[in-house]
């Protein structure tokens, strides 16, 4: 697969899982959907939520950074995930990381903030489908019921034995982003495929 910025050939952490994810998705008959969402732009932003940098970043993104803990705001092709009182993860489409980082850095200006490109630090998994909550509940201790983890929610938590950032993807159909450190992605991919056996039928 090509990285659109550089036309250099790139390989995502779960490229080797793609066929197995597709097969599991197919076998489940629509119950679960597993896929890697590779090369998303991911920029870590640290700043004072009450300071001028927060407003500037809000303007640059086209929406204010969420200040409600564990919530995510989408808009204009990017999303901002609240990770801490002064930390956000801004996620954009593949190929936009340099532009996004530049835009955010420019917005921050000379304010004491940090803008760090961490696009390759984690990869993203799509876990979707009517049984996606059940599938995640095999390894995630959070209450993922729509009443407590519905649209607009995100969290940093453990899935199986890997740290992940979990975000509700869609407002209508059940689906999640699972952002996982690249070095743990293979383990987590294997774990998800094993846990999905329940929903994908006999091996």
């Amino acid at each position, binding site marked *: 697969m090509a990285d659109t910025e*550089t036309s*250099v050939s790139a*390989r995502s952490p779960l490229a080797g899982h793609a066929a197995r994810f597709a097969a599991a998705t197919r076998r489940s008959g629509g119950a679960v959907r597993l896929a890697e969402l590779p090369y998303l732009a991911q920029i870590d932003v640290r700043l004072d939520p009450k300071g001028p940098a927060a407003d500037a970043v809000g303007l640059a993104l086209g929406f204010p950074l969420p200040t409600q803990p564990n919530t995510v705001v989408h808009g204009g092709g990017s999303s901002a995930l609240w990770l801490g009182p002064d930390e956000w993860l801004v996620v954009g489409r593949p190929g936009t990381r340099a532009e996004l980082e530049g835009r955010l850095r420019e917005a921050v200006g000379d304010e004491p903030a940090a803008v760090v490109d961490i*696009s390759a630090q984690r990869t993203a998994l799509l876990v979707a489908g009517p049984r996606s909550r059940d599938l995640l509940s095999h390894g995630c201790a959070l209450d993922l019921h729509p009443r407590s983890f519905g649209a607009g929610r995100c969290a940093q938590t453990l899935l*199986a034995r890997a740290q992940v950032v979990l975000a509700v993807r869609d407002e209508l159909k059940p689906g999640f982003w699972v952002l996982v450190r690249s*070095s743990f992605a293979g383990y987590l991919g294997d774990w998800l495929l094993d846990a999905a*056996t329940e929903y994908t039928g006999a091996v």
Partner: protein
Amino acid sequence: MSETTGQPFRLPEGGRIHRDEPLRFRFDDAEYTGFRGDTLASALLAGGVHRTGTSVRLGRPRGIFAAGSEEPNAVHQIEEPFPEPMLTATTVELYDGLVARSLPGRGRLADRPDPARYDARHAHCDLLVVGAGPAGLAAAATAARAGARVILADEQPELGGSLLAGRELPGWTREIGEELDAAPEVRVLRRTTVFGHYDDNYLLAVERRTNHLGAHAPAHLSRERIWRIRARHVILATGAHERSLAFAGNDRPGVMLAGAARTYAVRYAVVPGRRAVVLTTNDSAYAAALDLAAAGLEIAAVVDTRPQPGTWAQRAEQAGIEVLPGHAVVGTRGDTHVTSVTVAGYAEGRLTSSARQFTADLLLVSGGWNPVLQLYSQAGGRLRFDDALGCFVPDGCRQAVEAVGSANGTFGLGRCLAEGTAAAARAIAADPIPLPSFTDEPSSPAIQVFVVPGTDADGDGDHTHFVDLQRDVTVADLDRATGAGLGSVEHLKRYTTAGTAHDQGKTSGVLTSGVAAHLMGARIAELGTTTFRPPYTPVSFAALAGRDRGALHDPVRVTPLHDWHAAHGAVFENVGQWKRPWYYPQDGESMDAAVQRECRAAREGVAFMDASTLGKIDVQGPDAATFLDRLYTNMMSTLKTGMIRYGVMCRADGMVFDDGTVARIAEDRFLATTTTGNAAAVLEWMEEWLQTEWPELRVHLTSVTEQWATVALAGPLSRELLAGLAPRLAVDAESFPFMAWRDTKVAGIPARVCRISFSGELAYEINVLGWHAPALWDALYAAGRPLGLTPYGTETMHVLRAEKGYPIVGQDTDGTVTPQDLGMGWVVSKKKPDYMGKRSHARAESRRPDRKHLVGLLPDDPAVVLPEGTQLVAGSRLPEPPVPMLGHITSSYRSAALGRGFALGLVRGGRDRMGERLYAPVGGELVPVTVASPVLYDPEGARRDG
């Protein structure tokens, strides 16, 4: 009575078994049949098998005693379809092809891996109801109708609880079950035992999902599942267990709890005998006697310890059953099974008339009912002995938990239903639901009887008055214990082992307390019960391990280049959770040969390694330089943008914590690297100081360990290789000096190239985005092969650095070593006003000349490679122990460059011992070594610039 073939004790009709699904099984090498819906115990009883084993301590025959998870005797080894030790026959659902064996004591673990899947799920709810008897069903339905999120867990395959063994409300049970199954926010967990109740209403349960299908269990479903449940409210509708009482010979096969016999008859259509005597202290056994009589069992007599039993006794007499009020059983006879029961008049603890013998093959016993409060107690609930009820009842809990129905000491069906709905309505602020009207029979009070004295004739001295059947504990044992002065039930438990068996004293615990109180002349209320601990019933380790076994036992972390390493034959080393290439043997090479070859390539040609696992931390903000000056022992604020500095971090005690490099990316931005194993610890350490001690510093830290993949390129030919791939990079030593970094493109890939060397050779570290690493590596390999480019692993890296005397934190240090001890005083700033560890470095102890120093050690015999960890002593002859130890070897290798074995070690006053001979005791020999500088290769550093 027509007899079902091979099942002489099966009733011709009735029960909840599926007669159209006969199942064949083996027990102790004999063939039997039962039906779907049977337990192993009910099927054995149908086949006429009572005796299910031999007691552990005394070797006495024992038989099926109960009908549920409280069973103390019928604990079996399952042989097929997969060996499992110590399963309780009363809880094993029968399946076709089951092979079981009785156990004299311990079971046997399988000698092969379990092929079944096991897993876990987390679940959350507004209300967890444990137990699907009448009270539990009423509670669950109440919450479900209010739209609450409900989990209803029950250990049986069918909902109904005690209703399954009775004849009441069959329609209501079915309707409520269907309603709950259909409710969208209700999860009904059948075959699920809640076995642990922890703080904050966190409960663990095990669901037996496919065990009952035997060899036909679908392979893709987990066989057992652990449920980790977080509940806002918990209602325990866990029912009650019947208890026995202590009388002579109360352990023979054929002695059975009265309620259990009723369960076998009503639920399983099995009569556990032909002619029974019933011994009771309360009303409940009469219902059992009447049901059993209706099923065709002959009731020889109901022996009631109460002088005036009340209306239930009249009903029994009307049914033609002889009732003996004010009597008790004083003995049983029979070799391997009860053949007769001896009865005598009884009042207030004494025998009042001579004995009378009844021929019987069954003795049904009811000494009263114990509310099942194990979970309540685990949750922190207090228990109180209720004298009127003759049992322990709940007495308040700090958690949002309530016991209802017979678990609350409420024994009438109508009252159980009402209590269930009321508790649920309270818990979730809903309305109670309408319930079927059910009028409880009037009852007569029970009396508390724990011990029936033996007759003078049997003269057994209480040695067959059993209290704990599974542990073979008798009244005589308790008598000896109390006689020895043990007054607490906890002490009695440990002294006699009563209640410590597989069944955790479910039928014996209260009896133990009651007998002990009787022996001490105390009140049972004062003695109380022993502490209940999880699990309520045994849980298999396979279930608890779940998916965490085999390849998924612990995460394996890999770099983006892992597949290449594996494809090129790398042997991997575990570094924390990382897999790192250790060395790359070629064509059957030994490790030693591979490492020598890789070392030569790096020293003489060019070699490359995957260094992506190094920790990397982005340090950003106006005060970043100040922050780093405080954390590292050396000065970082003077570093120029574009340059890199080696740095050491100490803890406050002055001991080396980690080392790495710091690159200045911009005036207010640095990139710090850590050792692989300490990446997380260093980030946490930095955050701790930043957040708790120096919040005024405007600095942010971000882990970028996996953002960047790092390829180390080392060797005299590395510049040539790099120059060919990075045409825009001026690679000459003047333009690109040692400890500088440059952003450029390598093989067309955006890269940050650092001139860092961990080998002393001309070397580079090329950093690219993780997803570009394979392309970079492939390009290097293609371009480098004509130059002899050789991949090398961590072992070669270790040899190369050791030849240069570069320490590895955690290998050459152990938390007691200062930078000065390592001979790295140069890395400790004398100008800075402060840094972490400065005050400790000033202590007299840190300045003692006889501290252990890192030195090189050269064995006199160059062929010798000493084992790491070897001690170092002074003389060529060992004195009498204790032998003064001067130090030990921390690193030891064979060096291709030096043509000999060599080592690094920590030696007391080592720097003042240069040239001194020390001795290393190895396998009975004292190997002579000479102390040398730790820098053994290229001490002038001439090779660094190529």
